[in-house]
């Protein structure tokens, strides 16, 4: 009997913390060990909901876990990652990996020198529709890929997501990285040039909430992307990830969150789409747990997180400069 991997959640700040907690409660070979949060008012009820201990002091947490999932505010990822590396804990970090190139590089370096596994939470690599598209593309179904029109549109998330200092940006940093990672995984190529038009016009807040990006890959594939928080609260589901892949032999259309039943309640004034597809969050956490156990890289590494972040940061740079910019080169 192998001892289960004890996984702690570092902060309940991120909206995905609940999904990972749920996943940890359902995966064989792992236990949900504890929750740490710098805000007890947030962490304590979260821990209570999953009946795991709440630990207000990070130093007191380490004895009770083998690995951590970082779901803190984006700006805090680096400090928590470095603290975990210092005590040899494996890490799955919520996306975006960090809010600056410097922070992301420091995290990758810290994990490398500590010899721990650093994964980036890109559940789309475990989505069955997204995987089916990759299988088709790798099998050459559309011939040579020419162009891709992508979206990751959503509703505006609450709280700290709207604070530049904690989030590092708005819709662009939040909703570009999933698609950037999928594109690198599909094309097995690296993004080279990014152009972006960015707006704060949908919600008028301190962070950007709408944008259109054009990403040109080294191999010549041209991608347009819409990361906008353009779904109002009445929209029946949180948002989407779509890709229209045009090739020399045809087109493949992915609508990764279309596997829903449609629900129209009698007593409220808007509809809801309820997913029936396989649980990608759970598959991702399971892959991380198995990666730690087998001493192999997870599906998406810290480096993959850094590369995806570079695209979002290049978009901000492009919007500031008013011209296309080159994506930060791959270090290391």
């Amino acid at each position: 009997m192998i001892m289960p991997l004890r996984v702690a959640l570092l902060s309940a700040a991120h909206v995905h913390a609940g999904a990972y907690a749920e996943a940890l409660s359902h995966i064989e070979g792992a236990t949900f060990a504890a929750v740490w949060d710098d805000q007890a008012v947030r962490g304590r009820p979260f821990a209570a909901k999953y009946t795991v201990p709440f630990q207000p002091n990070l130093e007191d947490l380490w004895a009770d876990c083998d690995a951590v999932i970082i779901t803190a505010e984006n700006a805090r990822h680096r400090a928590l990652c470095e603290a975990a590396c210092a005590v040899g804990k494996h890490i799955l970090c919520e996306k975006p990996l960090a809010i600056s190139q410097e922070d992301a590089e420091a995290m990758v370096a810290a994990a490398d020198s500590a010899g721990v596994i650093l994964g980036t939470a890109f559940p789309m690599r475990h989505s069955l529709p997204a995987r089916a598209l990759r299988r088709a593309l790798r099998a050459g179904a559309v011939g040579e890929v020419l162009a891709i029109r992508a979206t990751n549109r959503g509703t505006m998330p609450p709280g700290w997501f709207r604070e530049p200092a904690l989030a590092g940006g708005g819709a662009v940093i939040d909703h570009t990285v999933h698609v950037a990672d999928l594109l690198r995984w599909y094309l097995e190529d690296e993004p080279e040039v990014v152009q972006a038009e960015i707006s704060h016009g949908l919600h008028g807040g301190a962070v950007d909430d709408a944008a259109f990006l054009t990403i040109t890959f080294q191999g010549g594939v041209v991608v347009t992307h819409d990361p906008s928080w353009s779904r109002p609260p009445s929209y029946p589901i949180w948002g989407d990830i779509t890709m229209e892949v045009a090739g020399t032999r045809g087109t493949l259309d992915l609508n990764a969150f279309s596997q829903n039943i449609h629900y129209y309640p009698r007593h409220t004034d808007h509809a809801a789409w309820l997913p029936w597809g396989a649980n990608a969050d759970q598959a991702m956490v399971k892959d991380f747990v198995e990666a730690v156990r087998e001493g192999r890289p997870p599906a998406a590494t810290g480096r993959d997180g850094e590369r995806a972040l570079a695209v979002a940061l290049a978009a901000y740079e492009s919007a500031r400069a008013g011209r296309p910019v080159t994506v930060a080169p791959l270090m290391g």
Partner: protein
Amino acid sequence: MIRVGLAGTGSMGTVHANAYRDIPGVAVVGVVGRDQGRTATIASSLNAHPYTDLEVMLRMEKPDVLDCAFPTFLHRTVVERGLAHGCQIICEKPLALTVEDAQAMITAARAAGARLLVGQVVRFFPEYRRIAAALRGGAVGTPVTLALLRQGAYPTGRDTWFRDDARSGGVFVDLMLHDLDWALTHLGPAERIYARLVSRREPVWFAQAMATVRHRSGAISQVAATWGNHRGFLTSIELAGDGGLVRHHSHESSALHSYLAQTPDETGGVSLPNLAASEDPYRTELAHFIEVLAGRAEPLVVAEQSLAALVLALAARRSAETGQVVSMEVGE
């Protein structure tokens, strides 16, 4: 390890073979089919022995389970042979073509102390499970109307057995049965049914059955089943109650669409990849049956339900023949 003898190498036999390959704790030990080449291919892909004679397979392999995926008109004979050899039974739907046969099979299984697990696979489709969960959770309140649709190509089968109602049961017994089972399972027994059938053999094979059911609960169901449509396999379901409406349409929820060039080029063309973007419900179903046979789960489908669906499908066919509403007896 549960040892399965698979009878059938047609469409459903192939689907079962592929699913078993993925299920832990199962070994397919023998495969029976009339086409020697096809049987040998499927058997070797499973490391099983090929047979052309069911009796010989049962005698030589002594499987724990006989999986019957032979054409419907052979189900009773195959199942009775398996029971005589002490096998547990997994049987494709429809259980049989007549009430007499189905009852005899249920009685024989009971007398042998064997399970008779019938492949009402719609119960295992994730979207239909999600609708059932919404219903159980109270999202629709008391159900009032249920509309079900199922369409596909007109099947042929070896020796064109599907096109002979005396051997396949026709569109009522083979296709509509799926949705009649779902309606009976979730809205309760039927009080009466009225049905019409539109069918052609020239210029194309086409059959569309349309039925309306009054359930004893007061709820009403409308069920349509089509062989010979030209827009690909599709299903839809819409359930309305005093608390809300849930619906699903397979075309709307399709996560990956392909639009590929018609003619392969000089390279010899591309073998089309599997575009399956969700879990395989046949695998879910057979894995569940294996859990039941291993004593680790209670069956989600009992043969008496398959019998009830057959009774209703035959009543629908009789209504279509007579033009009259057919009343069901209590207990039917």
